[in-house]
Structure formats: structure tokens, C-alpha cells
């Protein structure tokens, strides 16, 4: 079947999509967007987190057909021509990236949090990232990154 999705502001079409296929598979294997990572395929790890109509979801748990005529924003769509998104900059600045596999999903989840609540407490940050696993960092530098990104967003709004 044919699936048409607005991805990162651009209308994209994938053909010959198997109806049981996930949005993640379509993004990575059919549309050349490998930012969202394929790991657990059961919603446990969060490494495939993308926005579906402005809501963070696990792309592995969305049937591609369910995203038809809807809007998806992936990690590739956060930064612009001018450079990285402040959340991505914060991950770089704080050393929150080790192997990097979990990073795209964490960046999307953190992006949603800091724009929803740039004054989130540490407990709220932990809760917002509870669906994203990282096996390298021990999370401390990721928390540093989110605090830094949140303070940037809060500063921009002030």
C-alpha cells in the first residue's frame, strides 16, 4: 500500500508498504531517515522516539498506515540549516553522548519536555525520560544536558 506522511515539514510518499510494517521501518528503510534507531521493537527502549502530530511516540509501535496523512517530526527535523537545535547542542556541550545509539530518541524526548516545561524539576526530567534507555552514560550527563537545554529555552522565553 502507499503511505503519505508529512515528515519534517515535507510531504513524503512510500510505496509497497506492507500493512503490518512499522512507522520506524518506513522512516529508516524506505525514506532514508536513519535517525530514529531500531533496537527493541517493543517500546521498551525509546531509541525510536519521534513526534507524531506533536506527541512523542515509539515509531516501532505505530503501524505505518496509522501515520498516513499525519505529521511526523524526527531527530533529523529538529536542527535547521543554521545548525543544531539547542537540545542537541546541550547534549554535545555536556558530553551526554557515548556510543550514541540512544541519543536521537533521548533528544526528541528531551526536546518535548523542555518546550512543554522549561522549568521541569529533576524528578520531572527523570519521569519524562523514563521510556528511554541508555546503557553507557549512567544518565547523569544526560540530566546535565536536559537542564542546560531547559535553561536555554527558559532564557529565550524570558
Amino acid at each position, binding site marked *: *500500500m502507499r503511505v503519505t506522511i508529512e515528515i519534517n515539514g515535507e510531504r513524503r510518499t512510500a510505496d509497497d508498504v*506492507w*500493512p*503490518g510494517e*512499522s512507522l520506524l521501518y518506513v522512516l529508516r528503510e524506505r525514506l532514508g531517515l536513519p535517525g530514529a534507531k531500531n533496537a527493541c*521493537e*517493543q*517500546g*521498551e527502549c*525509546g531509541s525510536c*522516539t519521534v513526534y507524531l502530530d506533536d*506527541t*512523542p*511516540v*515509539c515509531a*516501532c*509501535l*505505530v*503501524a505505518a*498506515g*496509522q501515520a*498516513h496523512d499525519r505529521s511526523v517530526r524526527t531527530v533529523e527535523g529538529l536542527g535547521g540549516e543554521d545548525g543544531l537545535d539547542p537540545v542537541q547542542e546541550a547534549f554535545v556541550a555536556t558530553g551526554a553522548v557515548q556510543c550514541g545509539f540512544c541519543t536521537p530518541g533521548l533528544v526528541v*524526548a528531551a526536546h518535548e519536555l523542555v518546550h512543554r516545561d522549561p522549568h521541569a524539576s529533576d524528578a520531572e526530567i527523570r*519521569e*519524562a525520560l*523514563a*521510556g*528511554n534507555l541508555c546503557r553507557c552514560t549512567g544518565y547523569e550527563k544526560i540530566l546535565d544536558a536536559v537542564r542546560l537545554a531547559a535553561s536555554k529555552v527558559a532564557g529565550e522565553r524570558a
Partner: protein
Amino acid sequence: MSMDFLRPGSLAEALAMKAANPDAVPIAGGTDVMVELNFDKRRPPALLDLGGVAELAGWRTENGHVRLGAAVPYARIVGELGDVLPGLAMAARTVGSPQIRNRGGVGGNLGSASPAGDAHPPLLATGATVEVASSAGTRTVPIDEFFLGPKRSALAGDELITAVLVPVAAGPQQFAKVGTRNAMVIAVCSFGLALDTTRRTVGTGIGSAGPVPLRAAAAEDFAAEVLPWDDPAALTDETAREFGELVAAAARPIDDVRGSAAYRRHALAVLARRTLRWAWQDVSGR
């Protein structure tokens, strides 16, 4: 293998499609169905995408209960229904992760009919009713008749779960769940409690400690009888302990990868007396 992707735009259309394709698997949040597809556990002839069925996507209060659409995601239950359905909102808050709560909802939890489903204990404790529909009409199933066995329910092949009717809280409610961490936990065991201070009744729901989610009828009767409703004094240790033991006795747990039957019974007694204490504090003020 070929598979159809059915995309109804209304409930009537969804029911007609389900009648014509009884083996089609309904998909809403996808948090259970997609796992089975991703792991080749299931190859249905068709997926029936309920995402475009507006009738399933909202909730409203009517006649003393909330009519909660089957596809309302847990995130909305947490955000919008904490006052009227506190027990269900507490349970919803423990489901998966933010990403899972943004997609999954009670209709899918009921459809999967796992004994460990987080929504089930509060629905049992509040005496909720499941509304199911087919192209032949709508019927309601009391929640304690809905679950028939592990992952088996009273839902027929041509039916869809349309809503759950949950009485608006008439007293304090609680939910507690045992697992290895706060997020992404399938319950080792769980317990829902609902006090009705007007009718002076106590409702219970046990999760993940039996072939189906269970009520603890003897514990409900005991607590309704002995709680000092007229002059709400503090809960005595004896009452809390006896209530916990009656809840544990109602469970029918097994040993499995998440925990032993003995641990589940023990933990349920603890959860039951703890939640009764929390709920009664809201009544007695101490």
C-alpha cells in the same frame, strides 16, 4: 503474507468492516498489537485501524459515570480524569513510559485481557462496565464477567470495545503496583481500591495474581462491615491486617518469571493494607 489495512472513518464503518472481517485485528495505540507483529507472533489477515474513529477518542460524564472512549490514551486519563476517576488515573500513571501512555488506552488493555493489565484493578474496584458493539447492536458487560482466562475475554469476533463506563468516584481510591522499577513495568502484582462513602461499600481489584484480574469479595464485605463509617476513627492495625489477608487469600497466583506465587500473595497483603490505610486517611483525617 498479504494483509489488509482497513481504515474506517466512523464507528458504523468500523463495525461493518469487523463483521465482514472477523479475523481483522483492531489497532488503536498499537502498543500490544505492534509488538506481536514486529516479532512475527501474529499475522492477521487484516489490521483495523481505529485511529480515525472519532466516537472512540473522547470521554464524557453522563448519569453518574464517565463514558471513557476505548481509544482515549492513558496520558489523557492522567491529565483529565484524576478528579473523577482517581483510581484509574493512578493506574494509568504507572503504565509503561510517556511514549506508551501517549498511545495506549483502556480499550486495548481490555482487548488484550492480560491478567497484568494496569487498568483492570481500578475498573474491578469501581464496578465498571464494558460497552461492546457489533453491526447488530451494542451490549454492556459487567467488568467482572468480561475476563474469561489469560488473554481471553467476552468479546465476540464481530465486536469492538467502544467504551468503558466507570462510576464517578464517591470516595477515596487507591492503586499500587509492584515491579522492578517505576517505568516500563509489567506488574508483578497490583491492587486497586475504591471506597464509596455514600453507600459505605469497598471495591477491590487484584492484578497479575490469577488467570484473570480478580475481585476480593470477602475482603470487600469485611471492610464495608468493620470500617467505622459513622465516626471515622483511624484505621486499626487489626482491620488493615485482616483486610490484607483476605485480599491475599482471594488471589490465585502462579510462579513465573516476574515473581513466585508466594511472593505475590505476600506483596498483595502489603499493598491491600497500605492502600486501605491511605484511602481511610482521606476519610478519617488521620
